[in-house]
């Protein structure tokens, strides 16, 4: 018998996050091992009058294609790939790894080749998303693998995940609407700022957010959610930032990542772990050394790092920047196959200034 919270999560995702409307085609992607949730989503999409377009996958096959495929096999974008990207009205991405290191045997240059070949498809997808022509939501499910990375039992991690999404609340949607209002106040204040300065341990970073749109991430495009974000002026980031938590990206672990920026570009980098991959990621393409996103985590249910960026970036009292692809809907213009979020904890002495005025201290907005 599936966890009733899984059914409730599917209801929130379909009714609130995706807001499925009759006649819409809803593409559902994620590992086939998440079949209970995929079935629950299918049920809810259908109930709401949508047409499910089921695209579950085998992560093992993905890794196999990347490690064994020839350059041509990796870079050919087929009609099936185009149809998958173009046909749906809305897409649900389910993150539910059975092994978060499933890509670790794949050489990074193969991943880069694969991503580059799909850039055009992805760019078009995100542009259409930005224009509101299509919808998207990414949802993270509790799995043993994620629990393991978080250093928790599955039961404990389930409580953490469902708690972060408020899916056991009597009315989860009401919760997310009130959280949305709380975040809207921060968005309003941020929208008046030109120069944003973030100060924390080994961190003093200045970004220019003038002319950019701050967005309210309130459970529609990510679930669980809780952040406000924008894409900064590409050429204006100065200073340095040190990331507080360990991070896993495509099966590689990173720790103690520190970046120095000049005129928007990473000019120096350090890592205590994963240093050998860091350079490769920064050199993936021209856009990979520029900041595509700056954001503040506002989910107060999430208090601990779980080595999973989907949760870590939402921790109430943190900030994160992403290297690589920017959000067109925020006004960002940076393009890259990379979008790597790295989180900096502000809860212990961190400060955020907007045009010189203190806006947040110890992670709390004043």
């Amino acid at each position, binding site marked *: 018998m599936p966890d009733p919270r899984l059914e409730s999560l599917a209801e929130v995702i379909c009714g609130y996050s995706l807001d499925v409307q009759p006649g819409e085609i809803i593409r559902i992607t994620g590992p086939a091992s998440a079949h209970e949730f995929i079935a629950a989503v299918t049920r809810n999409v259908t109930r709401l009058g949508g047409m499910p377009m089921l695209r579950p996958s085998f992560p093992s096959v993905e890794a196999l294609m990347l490690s064994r495929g020839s350059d041509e096999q990796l870079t050919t974008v087929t*009609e099936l790939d185009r149809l*998958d990207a173009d046909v749906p009205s809305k897409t649900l991405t389910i993150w539910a790894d059975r092994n978060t290191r499933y890509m670790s045997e794949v050489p990074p240059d193969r991943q880069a080749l694969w991503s580059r070949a799909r850039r055009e498809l992805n760019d078009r997808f995100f542009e259409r998303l930005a224009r509101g022509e299509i919808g998207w939501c990414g949802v993270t499910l509790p799995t043993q693998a994620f629990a393991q990375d978080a250093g928790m039992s599955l039961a404990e991690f389930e409580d953490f995940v469902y708690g972060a999404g408020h899916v056991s609340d009597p009315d989860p949607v009401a919760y997310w609407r009130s959280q949305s209002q709380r975040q809207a106040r921060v968005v309003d204040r941020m929208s008046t700022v030109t120069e944003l300065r973030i100060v924390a341990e080994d961190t003093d970073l200045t970004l220019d957010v003038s002319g950019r749109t701050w967005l309210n991430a309130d459970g529609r495009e990510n679930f669980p959610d809780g952040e406000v974000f924008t894409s900064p002026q590409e050429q204006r980031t100065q200073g340095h930032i040190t990331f507080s938590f360990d991070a896993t990206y495509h099966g590689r672990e990173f720790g103690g990542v520190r970046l120095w920026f000049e005129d928007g570009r990473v000019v120096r980098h350090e890592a205590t772990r994963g240093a050998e991959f860091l350079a490769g990621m920064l050199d993936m393409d021209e856009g990979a050394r520029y900041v595509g996103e700056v954001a503040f985590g506002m989910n107060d249910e999430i208090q601990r790092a779980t080595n999973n960026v989907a949760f870590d970036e939402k921790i109430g009292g943190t900030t994160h920047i992403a290297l690589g692809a920017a959000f067109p809907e925020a006004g960002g213009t940076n393009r890259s196959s990379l979008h790597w979020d790295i989180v900096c904890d502000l809860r212990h002495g961190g400060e955020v200034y907007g045009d010189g005025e203190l806006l947040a201290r110890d992670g709390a907005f004043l």
Partner: protein
Amino acid sequence: MIDLRVERLAQVVCRHSLAAKPGELMLIEAPAVAEPLVIELVKAALEAGALPRVRVASEGAQLAFLSEASEEQLRTLLPSALPEMEAIDLRVAVHASVNTRELSGVDPARVAAVQESRKPVMDRYMQRSAAGELRWCVTAFPCQAFAQDADLSLDAYEDFVYRAGWLHLDDPVAAWQGFAGTLRQIADRLAGVRELRVVAEDTDLTVGVEGRRWIPCHGDRNFPDGEVYTGPIETATRGDVRFSYPAIFGGREVQDVRLRFEGGRVVRSEAAGGAELLGQMLAIDDGASILGEFAIGTNYGVQRFTKQILFDEKIGGTCHMAVGAGYPETGSTNTSGLHWDMVCDLRSGGEIYADGELIHRDGRFLPAFAPDLTPPEM
């Protein structure tokens, strides 16, 4: 422990059945339980230079859709379905299941509605296949649910499946190629026949096959394989047939099906159990009560009924026919959302006459008509 026969099956499907070539787009459709075979198929496809794409059927999702969908949703075809069928060069469908009765609580009319909505895709699939633009293969992965239906342990069922594909041989491809030669001779001889008459218990059925093409099936479109089939003349079928084995549709069994044909059409249908389903399916569209296929099973490595049509229709010593869509390459013009195979055992006393001449008795072609078809080392 890896079963090397899985790899062998994938290699035979990729190289022999599909003869995959560099740059060809290969769609692999499989339920999640067949993951080990899918992985081997992807490896084999990559080795052949093809472009594999996998479509996984997720456990429980089809049931969820069928249970919740409105009539309109059931009849809605995704706009991607037809262009997908146009785009692919190769298709592998892997049959496997976690529960063959998963859809048994669903109203068959709802299943039929989905089937009907897919008719344009099915038609196009058949056309492209007939034109040689699309090559495809249906295969199976041994799983607990199929083993259970066959009254076997998984171990024994795996042996059954792999022996049916002659994968216990060192060079299965060579064996299938030798078999192909013999089957072609049989198909050539059948090509000269105007009428076939099948006689067995409660069965005396005549099908018109004049001018239709007989296709030898030697492991290209089905794997395992072993049959020769044609598309009978749509208006000529007459007489009675009683099927020895239950007819299975979407996990439901229809027991002891008896059909009477007049002028090509089913004019009376009876069944000991599931008669309602039978009646519904025969009425889903105009072509559903007309034979689209008539075939003789020739895989003597398959001797038991296991409730999987892929194997059952190949049983050496049986014949089968399908109501519904015919294969245009046979000359059949029958179109339908349905293609439902039913099997009649001829091994105890069955006879087939070709224009009055006895050619097949007790499940074997007479030596005067065709050489022995028993595979090596059986």
